[in-house]
């Protein structure tokens, strides 16, 4: 009876063990966590809070930062996040996280949830891609709407979810992915472009922009640039969804 666009389950706090750390280079890491209790139901696009300090459940929640949940809701007892070292907290993560360590998370939060009732255009910059990975993992082959992803990173190696995307997007002829890297690439690869993500460089690839919803996740400068470009093209505010943070 209520619209398909839903919000969130009641959040829960979970202690988790770090089970895997992947160093992608240039300060970008993926962390896999195994929670000690059942993960509450969440939706692709939602995020978690991660705390490094010990948490006593009888007291207050310690300092934490938010990360999009990169794992799929169907992945059972696994939570995955990807982060880039950009400040004090993520520096601590880089220094302190080790396999076997325990951390606390609380989830789910956020309403950056993709509505499958229209064509979908995804703009992902760097680790902002993690806001879409859970969605891509759960994409079904019978989805009747086009999904078009523009994924940008500093270089080819930092397109860390490219193999997932290519595997999933092969499953349907109406899924499209285009990659943008800031550094030159030596060889020519299909759907690869050199330069920043922008409306000018992506607009011609969008099939029906005025029948689509645009989802943006990435660095603030990229998001601002894309929003301004979309507004110039006449895209309404209602058709632009942003994974934005204060």
């Amino acid at each position, binding site marked *: 009876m209520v619209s398909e*666009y839903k*919000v*969130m389950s009641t959040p829960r706090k979970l202690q988790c063990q770090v089970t895997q750390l992947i160093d992608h280079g240039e300060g970008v890491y993926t962390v896999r966590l195994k929670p000690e209790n059942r993960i*509450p139901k969440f939706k692709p696009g939602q995020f978690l809070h991660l705390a490094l300090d010990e948490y006593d*459940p*009888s007291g207050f*929640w310690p300092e934490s930062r938010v990360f999009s949940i990169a794992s799929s809701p169907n992945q059972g007892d696994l939570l995955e996040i990807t982060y880039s070292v950009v400040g004090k907290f993520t520096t601590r993560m880089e220094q302190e996280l080790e396999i076997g360590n325990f951390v606390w998370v609380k989830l789910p939060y956020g309403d950056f949830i993709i509505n499958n009732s229209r064509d979908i255009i995804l703009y992902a910059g760097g680790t902002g891609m993690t806001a879409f990975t859970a969605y891509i993992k759960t994409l079904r082959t019978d989805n009747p709407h086009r999904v078009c992803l523009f994924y940008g990173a500093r270089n080819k190696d930092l397109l860390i979810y490219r193999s997932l995307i290519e595997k999933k997007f092969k499953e349907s002829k109406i899924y499209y992915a285009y990659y943008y890297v800031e550094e030159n690439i030596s060889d020519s690869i299909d759907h690869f472009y050199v330069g920043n993500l922008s409306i000018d460089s992506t607009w011609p690839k969008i099939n029906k922009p005025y029948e689509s919803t645009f989802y943006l996740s990435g660095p603030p400068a990229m998001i601002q640039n894309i929003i301004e470009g979309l507004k110039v093209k006449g895209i309404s505010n209602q058709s632009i969804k942003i994974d934005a*943070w*204060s």
Partner: protein
Amino acid sequence: MTKASEIRQKILRLTAEYYQEKFEGKAFEPNKDLIHYAGRVFDEQELINLIDSSLDFYLTANRYAESFEADFSDYLGLDNALLVNSGSSANLVALTTLTSPKLGDQQLKPGDEVITVAAAFPTTVAPIVQNNLTPVFVDVNLGDYTAIPEKLVKAIGPRTKAIMMAHTLGVPFNLDVVMNLVEEHNLWLIEDNCDALGSRYRGKLTGTFGHLSTFSFYPAHHITMGEGGCVATDDEELARIARSIRDWGRDCYCAGGESNTCGKRFSQQFGTLPYGYDHKYVYSHIGYNLKVTDLQAAIGCAQLQKLDDFIGKRKDNFESLFEFLSRYEDQLILPMPTENSDPSWFSFVITVRDDAGFSRDELTHFLEVNRIETRNLFSGNLLRHPAFESIKHRVVDNLTNTDKIMLNSFFIGVYPGINKDQLNYMAQVFARFMDGERV
């Protein structure tokens, strides 16, 4: 271990010792000890949790509330369980949720009709009136005390938007008929499950059929927190609205003591407020403060562990009373489940037949004098109470059985605190009355 942890452990050990000295192992004394219709059943764990929570001194909802909500929603198999401070508050929150503008054209608006029953606890119906909606009353069956299915069908009118009624005293109403009506007429359903925790219909727990359901944890109920209740739903949008109604009407969903969990605390636009106005103080509903404390939830956590055992004992006690009292069926209408249901009995309801040769009041007076507590089936007919006499409402046909319940029905306890000695004593007292003894 810190000194504080050591002291804490010592306090908790002493609490268990205190429980044994204060509460454990008191034998029943017939004709002296009152056999309550209901009551709290607990052991040292409830006391330990309560003291443990008090030593946290967090006070407002925290780890115990979170734990209870998680375990309770798991028990129900629903995504969301929101603790509130009573079952009545749960009803108020649940119905008010459906008046939220966030529901668009599904929002309940003043004058819309909500189907219910008058043989009810008042706070199942009060939220309908409090929200300027119109209750439509249907009569109930004698024996199961739930809405007569044919009357429910007949109750549907052009302004009918919802059904809100209780699984009376643990007996599931006819969910086949109700769910068909919900589907066919695009109605909201709120199950007042306050008296029916653990009841099943076609094998599925009641409280999991409706868009929203409500629970009470008052001491008379299947599990207790003292005062406490819960709203459950599988719909996140409804859960968020219900949380807002419960928490002053605020738009922000951060729990107490938390801030900016959404990351947009100072970067959103609401109404005509200045851009970036603190989201913690933005109000999207006319709300209440109906939250629970962590001390209440701490008791609830211990009680929830005992729920299956409690339900089993309620069923056993019910069977014992039924077996004995069935010999008087020519004078008493005994309780019965609705078809396809497996009640987690709240109590044992009896209706004195018109030609029994004695009145309900004579029988309950005799039981009370002999230390067996009785209760009427709540309001009897709610529409005959001063507060409800002049409310705007509609009645489908008549409330003949409801009036009969008001005059002839009462209930006695089946709660897990009643033991075999007490059941035997109850049987003896009934037999004496039926043999003609009076006071």
